[in-house]
């Protein structure tokens, strides 16, 4: 069990160094509080964003924390790949530049996998291949638009899709 964990930790650490460099353009690393007995301690995330000093996650700004957490998520996804990923509003704390970097990181990974990303940020929407619009219509419920027209099946009792 400990061996399996240390093996996973080594792979996630390596992936994290890469994804953090990609998102924050700095150096990030994962560290075990208790390397000899991992289950007796926690997981420390330390990072040196571009041009700044090494800091633990807890001391960073809101946006830097989110970006670091996303690098960690990308590392987990690299070690445990799936054909389909979902991100629901992961860019809430990010400014325009960081949102754009994240969008590019998602786009490059989307060559080989599907990414479904919910976002309010135009910067994110513009980088995607398809945007699904969702609105609430009084007395009707959720209406979905923006789905490519050739996909709509007239036989469906769903006249509002693509309408």
């Amino acid at each position, binding site marked *: 069990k400990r061996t399996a*964990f240390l*093996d*996973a*930790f080594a792979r*996630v650490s390596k992936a994290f160094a890469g994804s953090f460099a990609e998102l924050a353009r700095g150096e990030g690393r994962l560290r075990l509080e208790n390397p000899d007995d991992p*289950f007796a*301690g*926690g*997981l*420390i995330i330390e990072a040196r964003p571009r041009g700044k000093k090494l800091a633990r*996650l807890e001391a960073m700004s809101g946006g830097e*924390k*989110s970006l*670091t*957490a996303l690098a960690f998520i990308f590392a*987990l*996804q690299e070690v*445990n790949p*799936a*054909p*389909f990923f*979902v991100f*629901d*509003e992961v860019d809430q*704390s990010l400014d325009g530049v960081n949102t754009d970097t994240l969008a590019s990181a*998602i*786009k490059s990974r*989307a*060559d080989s996998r*599907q*990414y*479904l*990303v*919910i*976002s309010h940020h135009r910067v*994110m*929407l513009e*980088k*995607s*291949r*398809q*945007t*699904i*619009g*969702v*609105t*609430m219509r009084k*007395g009707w*419920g*959720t209406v*979905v638009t923006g*789905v*490519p027209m050739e*996909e*709509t*099946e007239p036989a*469906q*009792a*769903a006249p*509002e899709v693509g309408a």
Partner: protein
Amino acid sequence: VRVEALTLDNFKSFAKKTRIPIRDGFTTVSGPNGSGKSNIIDAIQFVLGIATSKGMRAERLTDLICIEGTKPSARVTLELAGAFEDADGRRTHKKVEVTRVVRRQKSGAQAHYEVDGTPVRLTDLHDLMRDLGFPTSGQNIVLQGDVIRLTSMGGVARRQVLDELA
């Protein structure tokens, strides 16, 4: 394997049956607060049996049935397509449809899963998902607020995220 489409019928805020095709690559979803975006994610978790009702912001499964709808049941279908390995080890391209229904009845909630129209148990569905390389843990789904939770959880809780992966 890839996701081809998601159909929501009387599920949460989707009073009308709605089929949402999902293309390859990078797809975004946008719209006003409370319009139903996260409900689409709940539908994916629902149909694949990868979350509790609380994980879909519902007290009970029957809370997932559209309140304004006319039917006493909610139905979600996920269409998947990909290279499947058949019994002889040959890879063929096929489509598979996974469906889950929850029904409100006098005796309580009734729910079941179907694969290509045939009722199956959740364990069978998860075996199929594993064959397709699709996670059954929900680790590939980052819910609204998860990133912020990840930034505020302590070191031990964070390490436990890694425990689950190993």
